[in-house]
């Protein structure tokens, strides 16, 4: 008797790895660590990690600058809230250990795109700190589609990831100064053809046509085997915010995966427009007004601003993207979020801000805006305040200043948005009508044992179950016709 199949998700998430960047600053915020000090902190933190049973997490010094550290997580599955809880709990511990190690050496660590307090001496490199999200993608076709999706939504994603508005003790004109001054950031060109075996040709082509010597410097790096690395995210301080970003990235990957498997190609957005919008996003973050691509040709126009050919605010554009059917018969990114069994609370850090901004409220959508606000509110005390806030975010991983601020300021609206989104994200497996099942994600839900904490809906519908623990596998053949009818309706 073979082992039985339980829940089946047709297009699901893949494993995820995070290279969390951390910036080291002396306690008096006047100097950066030397290379020796950096090594000392790393050695101390590595010892502490081994002692805490977190040896699969690595802390490595960044070779590009002595004030940078990277926490490299293992490849973990993030397909349920429970797995994500475990992952972020561990990451929080590691960050705490690194902070303690830094403090033991007279420094403190913080997640931020660029050092807000110090400007390096002339001729010295600037410390550019990034969170690099690595998504496991095992197939060239999927790499192609997911890469193109991230390329297409790059401005929107940069808009919520900007976190380096303060630099050298001054407020900058850009919300993401790191991206502005980063010499190794290139807008990914559109790829209609991709094969990992032809990577050398692609490198030559990129070099010839785009003047790009190293493909690894693309904002979406596809040169690593079986990995798609997102290099455009400024290092974040809040673990809750990182979690919300991770979910968004994984949902986009799920969407790309489903596009690849159904053999769909997506219409191309011109590089010129992406570059322009990216520059706007770097400057103004979620407040940027993106320009449409007037030359873009699509067979069937959607409600996306690029299809409507009108300018749109970045935060609204991102919300549009979530609901967008990339091609006629494809799912949406929201669909991907449902596959990840996302809870509203998980994506609320940026989602609440974007929804409030859409309603015309003066709220915060990313940490770049938070920095800006702090600079104006706290006046001369902002460095101390920022330092305290960053440390608090490490020590209290459940805190997210954006969400707290927005919720406190717009409590009624926040509740309304939460209700709306909880409904949107609902995994509609309890729907009894056959017509409704056709709209649900393409999953087959096996009834879980009562103490299964993974599934929030403990009672699964009988109409969608393929086989139950009580049933014998031999009964499957009896239900074949019923199953096939059901899955035809679901489009499996």
């Amino acid at each position, binding site marked *: 008797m073979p082992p039985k199949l339980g829940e089946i998700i047709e297009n699901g998430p893949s494993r995820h790895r995070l290279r969390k960047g951390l910036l080291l600053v002396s306690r008096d915020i006047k100097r950066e660590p030397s290379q020796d000090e950096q090594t000392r902190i790393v050695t101390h933190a590595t010892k502490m990690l081994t002692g805490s049973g977190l040896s699969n997490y690595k802390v490595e010094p960044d070779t590009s600058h002595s004030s940078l550290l990277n926490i490299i997580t293992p490849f973990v599955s993030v397909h349920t809230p429970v797995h994500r809880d475990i992952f972020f709990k561990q990451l929080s511990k590691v960050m705490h250990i690194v902070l303690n190690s830094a403090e033991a050496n007279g420094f403190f660590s913080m997640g931020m795109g660029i050092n807000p307090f110090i400007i390096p001496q002339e001729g010295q490199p600037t410390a550019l700190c990034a969170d690099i999200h690595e998504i496991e993608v095992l197939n060239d076709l999927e790499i192609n589609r997911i890469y193109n999706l991230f390329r297409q939504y790059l401005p929107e994603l940069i808009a919520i990831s900007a976190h380096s508005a303060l630099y050298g003790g001054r407020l900058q004109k850009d919300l993401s100064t790191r991206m502005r001054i980063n010499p190794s950031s290139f807008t990914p060109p559109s790829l209609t053809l991709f094969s990992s075996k*032809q990577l050398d040709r692609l490198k030559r082509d990129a070099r010839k046509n785009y003047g790009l010597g190293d493909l690894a410097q693309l904002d979406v790096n596809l040169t690593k085997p079986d990995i798609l690395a997102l290099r455009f995210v400024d290092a974040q301080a809040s673990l809750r915010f990182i979690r919300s970003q991770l979910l968004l990235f994984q949902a986009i990957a799920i969407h790309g995966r489903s596009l690849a498997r159904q053999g769909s190609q997506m219409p191309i957005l011109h590089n010129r427009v992406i570059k322009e919008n990216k520059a706007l996003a770097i400057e103004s973050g979620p407040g940027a007004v993106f320009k449409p691509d007037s030359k873009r040709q699509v067979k069937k126009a959607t409600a996306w601003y690029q299809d409507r050919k009108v300018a749109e605010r970045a935060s609204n554009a991102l919300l549009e993207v979530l609901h967008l059917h990339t091609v006629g018969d494809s799912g949406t990114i929201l669909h991907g979020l449902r596959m990840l069994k996302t809870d509203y609370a998980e994506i609320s850090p940026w989602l609440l801000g974007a929804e409030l901004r859409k309603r015309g409220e003066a709220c915060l959508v990313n940490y770049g805006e938070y920095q800006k606000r702090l600079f104006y509110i706290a006046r001369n005390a902002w460095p101390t305040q920022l330092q305290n806030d960053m440390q608090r975010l490490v020590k209290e991983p459940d805190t997210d200043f954006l969400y707290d601020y927005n919720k406190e300021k717009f409590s009624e609206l926040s509740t309304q948005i939460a209700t709306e989104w909880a409904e949107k994200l609902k995994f509609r497996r309890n729907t009894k009508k056959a017509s409704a099942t056709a709209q649900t994600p393409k999953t087959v839900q096996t009834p879980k044992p009562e103490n299964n904490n993974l599934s929030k809906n403990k009672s699964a519908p009988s109409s969608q179950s393929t086989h139950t623990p009580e049933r014998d596998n031999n009964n499957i053949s009896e239900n074949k016709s019923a199953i096939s009818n059901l899955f035809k309706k679901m489009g499996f």
Partner: protein
Amino acid sequence: MTTQSSQYPYIEVTLNLRNLNVKVDNLQGLLKIWQALARDLIGKPITTGQRLELTGSKGKWSLIVLDTHGIASIDEKTYINVVDIERNPQIRHACKECKKQNKTMFGPFFCPECRRLEQPDRLCEIHTQFLENKYTAYCPEHLPRCQNSKGSDDPATFECDYCHKTFSDKWKHHHPNDQFTLLCRNCYSFLFELCEDCQHEGHKRLGKSRCAFPTGVGDEKHGKRICTLRHARQWQIWGPHWRGIILCEQHYQQLSQASSADLLWMLITAKPPTQFLRSKITDVYRLRNLIGYVRQKELSWEEMERVLRGLAERIEQYKAPKYVKEHIRQITKKVGEVQTNLPIIEAELLDRIRDFYRSRLRENPVTVVLGVTIKKVFWGRGNKTPSYKIAVHVGRDSRGKSMKGLLIGKKGTLVNQLENHLKLHAVERIDFEE
């Protein structure tokens, strides 16, 4: 970590069914495969993050264990929750070459030439052919050919990054400072080879020019690298203000002894420096005059026709550029027309000149004006009728003295009148020759 009751243990996995022999795109197919293959899983020890590779009767398949939930090995009671099924995509664009072998393989690439011809164009990884430094995919049929000057038809392996023509491997050169830039032999030599004469003199100067004197084999040229500054010589066929044909010192000195075929070949294949000079290539009078000037001996129309016939035979033997073929065709045609029409016009002009002198001279004009030759035909821009430069052949009197003076008249009065008289007949200039 969540716990699972001992009665219903479960693990979470990602399935990879890409390499199976059977197509999996519905649940029934999955269940069948599961029934057939999952037995191999029983008793397998598992750990979180492990990749299990399995081979069954249906082919290879694998799973990545995402979470064991505390289970050490899979048994009959273990439930397997599938988080993602990696499977082959629906094939909307199948490889056209695989289709010929009754196989269906996804074709991620397309042949641009097939697309242009509106034929099936999709190609899989196996049937795609690439040039070394291009990301364009070609089907075996449309892989570009080597465009070298020898006229061979080998398949191309790379595209020259300078001239953008395609060449086979034997023409390949790497840029000296950049291994990714590929150059053909000609471009490499143009860009990086030194002037041969300067090298003999112990200097290092780039030989940016090449001697264009033909060797007589195909369109091969002498090709000696010479510096523009000191050793290049020019045959200024486009006038004094335009760069002419580049020749080495030796060939420049021997230009007057060169054969008509070589000279004509150089004139026909020379690249005009501007657009408006292009029409001059097929101007037969210009060609004839240029050759006559260089050799200091007039080229007869008959000889010109014979030379052109020889050149036409030569271009048949190798794959000459289309424009050369076209030029030779046009010039041959014009020479033929000239040979037919010119005697008629010349006879008409002779009659008119004799008529003019009949009332002005005591001598019989037939003995004075022996003949007329059209030296040059001008085609002004936009003009529909040509203008002529003619030579009037003058006879001698009984004492053997030239009668040129009689025809010119006192202070050139007669010749001025004759010019005005003939202007109506498009004669621009009259020379008297004995």
